[in-house]
């Protein structure tokens, strides 16, 4: 039975009339034309579909639309502000932390969630947090280096903000 589900997508109110049992991934990609979240395995094994719901990482291929009702969803399309890249995005470019780029949106969003909870993570903490995100063509070490660099850049920004 179709139902109208309302939630915030990258800061904007959206509503979609469809079956609430559908997984968020397909609603984002098909109904809402946000294709940044990728299908990789469909069963929660690869992390390519990772999005944030109320700041927490969720596998969109396993997340029923009904659970998004009234909540705030962040996809990769919502991370840059006014054309300015988030430090994580910039660090991924600077460290060559992607090759084909298919797993990259999920990686960045999972790392984003980590940095919210653990602003200054060790390399081991980053690897641990990202263990469920698979990359098939790159060196995971570059992703860890990028997340470390972003955490330092964010720290510097925070310092600058406090100084003002």
């Amino acid at each position, binding site marked *: 039975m179709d139902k109208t589900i309302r939630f915030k997508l990258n800061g904007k109110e959206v509503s979609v009339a*469809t*079956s609430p049992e*559908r*997984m968020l991934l*397909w609603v984002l*990609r*098909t*109904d809402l*034309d*946000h*294709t*940044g979240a*990728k*299908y*990789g*395995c*469909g*069963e929660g*094994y*690869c992390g*390519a579909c990772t999005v944030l719901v109320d700041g927490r990482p969720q596998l969109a291929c396993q997340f029923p639309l009904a659970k998004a009702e009234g909540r705030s969803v962040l*996809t*990769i*399309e919502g*991370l*840059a502000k006014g054309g300015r*890249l988030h430090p*994580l*995005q*910039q660090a*991924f*470019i*600077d460290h*060559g932390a*992607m*090759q*084909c*780029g*298919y*797993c*990259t*949106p999920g990686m*960045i969003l999972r790392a984003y969630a980590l940095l919210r909870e653990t602003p200054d993570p060790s390399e081991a903490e*980053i*690897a*641990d947090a*990202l*263990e469920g*995100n*698979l*990359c*098939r*063509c*790159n*060196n*995971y*070490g*570059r*992703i*860890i280096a990028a997340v470390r660099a972003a955490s330092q850049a964010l720290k510097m920004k925070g310092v600058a903000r406090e100084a003002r």
Partner: protein
Amino acid sequence: MKPVKSRTHPRIRPRGRDDEYTMYGPGGPGPAPTLERREFLKLAGGGLVVFFAVGEGAEAQIAGARGPDGGYPEDPNAYLKVGADGRVTCFTGKIEMGQGIHTSLAMMLAEELDVPLASVDMVMGDTALCPYDQGTFGSRSTKYFGPPMRRAAAEARGILIRLASKRLGAAEDELATKDGAVYVAKSPAKKVTYAGLIGGKRIEVRLEKKPPIKPLAKHTVSGKPTPRRDGRDKVTGEAKFSGDIRLPGMRYAAILRPPAHGAKLKTVDTAAAEKYPGARVVRDGDLVAVLHEKPDLAREALALIQAEFDPSPSTLDNSTIFDHLRRTAPNAETVEQAGSLDEGAKLAAQIVERSYYAHYVAHAPSEPHTALVEIEGDKVNVWASTQSPFRAADEVARTLGVVPANVRLRTPFVGCGFGGKNQGGQIIEAARLAKLAGRPVQVAWTRPEEFFNDSFRPAAVYDVKAGLDAAGKIVLWDYHNYHAGSRSSQPVYDIPHKRVLAYGSGFGGGGGQGGVRPHPFATGAWRGPGSNTNIFATESHADILAEAAGLDPVAFRLKNLANDRMKRVVEAAAKQFGRAFAKAPTGRGYGVAITDYLNTCVAAMVEVEVDKARGEVRVLRVVCAQDTGEVINPDGARMQIEGCVTMGLGYALTEEIRFKNGRVLDQNFHTYQVPRFSWLPKIEVVLVDNPDLAPQGCGEPAVTVMGAVLANAIYDAIGVRLFMLPMTPARIVEAIGKKSG
């Protein structure tokens, strides 16, 4: 240099506007008028176009290279354009799947034309805009496409200087180029931009001579570490992959699959699926699919179809495959032969004979095979994740019965390939379904479909017999490989008496003797086809010989190598590794393996820990030294090598397709284990400087040594050798048990 004669090939049927492709990156969407090249040049406005030919070497021709009019590679099959706005565009049928040629080829162009890198556009993998290309594989793009493109750019620069000479009233040799402008060397204020020179003019030339290219010493772009140019699109989600393309009225397909390879559809009842709201069931012979506006709902409806299949005729599984492969081996091809095996045996003080085995491995690309097909009258538009856009477009034309020129295939960003996307089954499925539906149809394989339909790296068997003389030199080498293919089957060492035989190519389902298919499913190229497992066998065997000779494995290799480049790379790796090797096993877990992969020299050295009780291998450190000739983008080269090392851990330690009676038992990443963050070793790459050698391939070489280097390190750690890939914990525990038992 002479004007290009009017001709209908190469198939160049671009869109009307010049700026559309820049909006989408490689092969993004846009209208698809069909035009002859002449018309294109008219519509595209002013510009200097240089046509050039790209030959891909004898190997490529063997692999089935062909040109649109049969004349490949003499015909121009690539071109670049300096536009009226001064922007430089390269049109190539190569595709970007992560390997970074979107950046490195643009760097080569910017360098040779003296324009900022930011003003170079790459148009890739679009069969309407780009001249014929046989496909992106074999670590060949920079090696074979780069040099002629560079010469064409040098030619373009020469023409711009000639035009400027008239404009500026200065002799050509008084002029220099920089930042997209020609200027008088002694008074740089006197200058004219490329855009100013070209204005509304149209100039077409075909490159025939080989103009001098810039000496390396003058390079300011090429050779400098450069971030990926597609990085921004890939971190913002703007990068479009095939599954991200949307067309009005399109439908998503969910296709009925047999439970096993070779299982034929017997009965099918689609009544329940047809009642599913919004679903439409279509059928063309064995192809049964549900179409729906939503991909997930198409799949829900598909689950309602009741189908019965005959059982697969295949009775093979992982335990019986190797005997079967020996039995079904076709006649041998002699890959290499020298001296006499009898003579070698006489010289040998000791002879070592062993057999090696490798299981099937999946490509498991991040992005499963995906295609979108739109049919409008007799015109067809395709967007597909493919490594072979032109071949795929031709197959679509044959399938739909339209002329090839009417099929336009665009290749958006491709999410990994590794050889698996040379096969375009999903494209043909989408074409057939689009025809049945009368609407655009997307086919995006699910992960289980990806595992089921993949063309696996072939399982293979290797028999190796080698002899050592009293001085520790290899004097005899008799090598038989069954179904791996010939690549990297030749020993890298200097051996007087040798024979290398390959029984079967490793490609396709295979014919085999008596019509028995060797493989129960498709097999094909897998990043470094044949080489990964041939090198597992040859370099494992070299280590056994080193121990038999009483030498450490590095000293033994240096002693038996004649190739100075290879020696230099081994020494560079040893220097970086910084720990002396000793005769194995030492208990320390050090390993070495080397190869000369299509003229790229690689030496890897690793350190591992083995948990003997659990059989688990922890790779602590990987040093990989590589001489790949001139390096265009050192960042890109390092990323390729690091990616090879990471991927290689998987086929070495865990990746194996389990199958039984035609069924593929591994269907997703919970059982098919690919490398993940927790596996990560410290990876150190050494780019061995060799700028005098033209750029060689970089996308595959380093992955090919990973099986052997880990086998050798495991032996050094625990004194137990593994003869089968992958070296899973269970196999390691079993091998330890056999040795101590």
